[in-house]
């Protein structure tokens, strides 16, 4: 076993492992990305139903409605300029309330409703996700000084 052979084995093994890792990453990146969209962007160009979307904004005041089964909720998410109706079934996070910044993960339905499979609110009440802040700034509704 010469030094060269030893090194060759290691290089080949490294190429194999990192090569397959790269292949896995490229294959996975194709279909596991969720695109972040603000209500204005969604209204301007509604995404295809199969596209995974993270819709972020503020829960519009006075729009939260619970259905009779106690589980289904509908509300609208707004960036001040536009708003999108959202439907969700399940328990909402503790800090979900009207006027609060949230991110919902799901798909846009063909009827114009956003079907959320996940609703995320931050664990801290002063918090707005950075994407939501940017969306608010873009629509000219941002009033805060800095992103907290």
């Amino acid at each position, binding site marked *: 076993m010469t030094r060269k052979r030893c090194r060759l084995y290691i290089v080949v093994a490294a190429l194999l492992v990192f090569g397959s890792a790269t292949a*896995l990453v490229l294959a996975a990146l194709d279909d596991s990305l969720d695109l972040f969209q603000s209500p204005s962007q969604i209204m301007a160009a509604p995404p295809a139903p199969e596209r995974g979307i993270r819709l972020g904004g503020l829960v519009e005041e006075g729009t939260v409605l619970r259905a009779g089964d106690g589980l289904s909720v509908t509300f609208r998410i707004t960036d001040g300029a536009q708003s999108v109706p959202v439907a969700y079934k399940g328990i909402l996070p503790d800090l979900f309330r009207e006027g609060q910044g949230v991110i919902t993960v799901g798909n846009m339905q063909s009827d114009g409703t956003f079907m959320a499979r996940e609703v995320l609110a931050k664990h801290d009440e002063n918090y707005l996700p950075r994407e939501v802040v940017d969306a608010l700034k873009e629509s000219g509704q941002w009033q805060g000084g800095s992103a907290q």
Partner: protein
Amino acid sequence: MIIELGHFALVLALVAALLQGSLPVIGAARGDAAWMALARPAAFAQLVLVVISFGALTHAYVTSDFSVFNVVQNSHSAKPLLYKITGVWGNHEGSMLLWILILSVFGSAVAAFGGNLPPTLRARVLGVQAWIGIGFIAFTLLTSNPFLRQFPAPFDGEDLNPLLQDPGLAFHPPMLYAGYVGFSMAFSFAIAALIEGKVDAAWARWVRPWTLLAWSFLTGGIALGSWWAYYELGWGGWWFWDPVESVSFMPWLLGTALLHSAIVVEKRNALKVWTILLAILTFSLSLIGTFIVRSGVLTSVHAFATDPERGFFILILLALAIGGSLTLFAIRAPALKAGGLFAPISREGAMVFNNLFLAAACAAVFLGTLYPLFLEALDGSKVSVGPPFFNATFVPLMVPLVFLMAIGPLLPWKRADLAGALARLKLAALGALAVGLVAWYVNNGGPVLAVAALGLAAWLFVGTLVEWADRVKLFRAPLAENWSRARNLPRAAHGMTLAHAGLAVAMAGMIGASVWKSEVVTSLRPSETVEVAGYSLLFEGVGRLQGPNYTAERARFTVTRGGEEVAVMFPEKRVYDVRAMPTTEAAIRTTFLADLYAVIGDADGQGGWTVRVYHEPLVPWIWLGCLLMVAGGLTSLSDRRLRIGAPHRERAGKPAARPAAA
């Protein structure tokens, strides 16, 4: 007054660090013993000053001194004492101070126990530690000063985020930080070795215990964080591949690789350059872990204490530390002498594979975590990478690693016989098959991949035990001989068995909890029942409850199985008085094999409540497995070989009669 003292002590600590980071390093370059000797007292002074500083802030918290801005923001006089203390690091400024405290404890440990290190190496290691300290203390003083006053002082504080008022999270940050900062030791040794231009077995013997200690802390910290998320957030999940989790997991992956490659350097004097690189990268990832989420660069819904304002300072700090060390590596590494040779099928070869897979897995996690940043920088589009990405990349890379993990320890150094090793693993193969079949039978089929994965965990578990049993000649020699052999085995061997078996147990838990979890979400009125996995939960209504600083709505469930009452569960929904912030307290009933997990949501106003019930098979095994891994790390750390003989570079191998130093 005490607060100003704390502030002043921190400034003095910066001075001590500046001293420690300059004169001894120059002294080492010029061979000036007196200058090099300065490093030790400077390190001790730095520790004492930082302890005073940290003590001052803690004092302000305990006595609820609301003239301190930081205390106002994160504490309240009605808070239980435990959370007053843990509130010190429940915020950005205080957690930075904790980071510095742990760093100076580690620095002083080198100063105290490093008496047997070559003087130039010790001076340089302490010097590099001081450079890290300078960066962090300056960062804290300039941008995140916890000692700022507020005038006029309010009557009471704004309380700590209620989610943080929890024993699990109280000790999560110190553990995690001890892990992150612990890797600074490996980093300092690596940089010092690059400056010295020398890496040998003695160097690896010094690096390994520090890495082990850091790794054990980090494992514990991650497990604690995951456990907290599981019982506190009320989602019944234990890992979300959220950026805040991924960034703590990356240093763990590379740290694990470093742990193994350091063994190769120590035993066989090979893989030296790679080990140095790993040490640098592991600590770099720790720095990224400390900063990237809280700087607001990456969005995480789970991050606490974020502060986007300081991003610029942080970027400079990261660029200096990571860029500087990698540049030094590029310049100096080629000068290091090449190490020993080995065949691909050997213990060293197995470690190389371990390192390759761990590094590749870490790279995949890194890419997935930072991809949104790259993409936004490129074309401004905002995306998020979710769990499917990590499941599709990380998991397939772990499968071969776990498969090889059972074989590796059976291979001898230098050159091994693969067929012989595989023959010894017959029992493990049988065990894997048996577990797979049982899982298949119990679940009436079920996903094939999950059954195979469970079999893989069994393969690792049995394979690990087979290796241990071989070494103590279990069943092949009288019990007394087993016992004496076990006692004579190095502690590191027991440690490896524990840690590897722990991973197998944790794996089984992760598989069970991901694949066989059942969930029911429904709306219940009092005296209605919900059924899940053979249990039926009778909802008996909701009562009010007054806690020390919160009010709770507490539901009562009577759990029966086959008509027999097995438990009463009380999930709560709390509202904390000061912040008016609601939190969910899950009720969990655990048998060793599964958890029953109940959460209540909101009332629907017509007498009904949203209720969510999970049945999670094997989930307790995740944390049991992590506990075993930590125990393995600590057992290995107590190995005498790690403490004796290490410093004697020229006479390495001769057991010195030096008493245990640590």
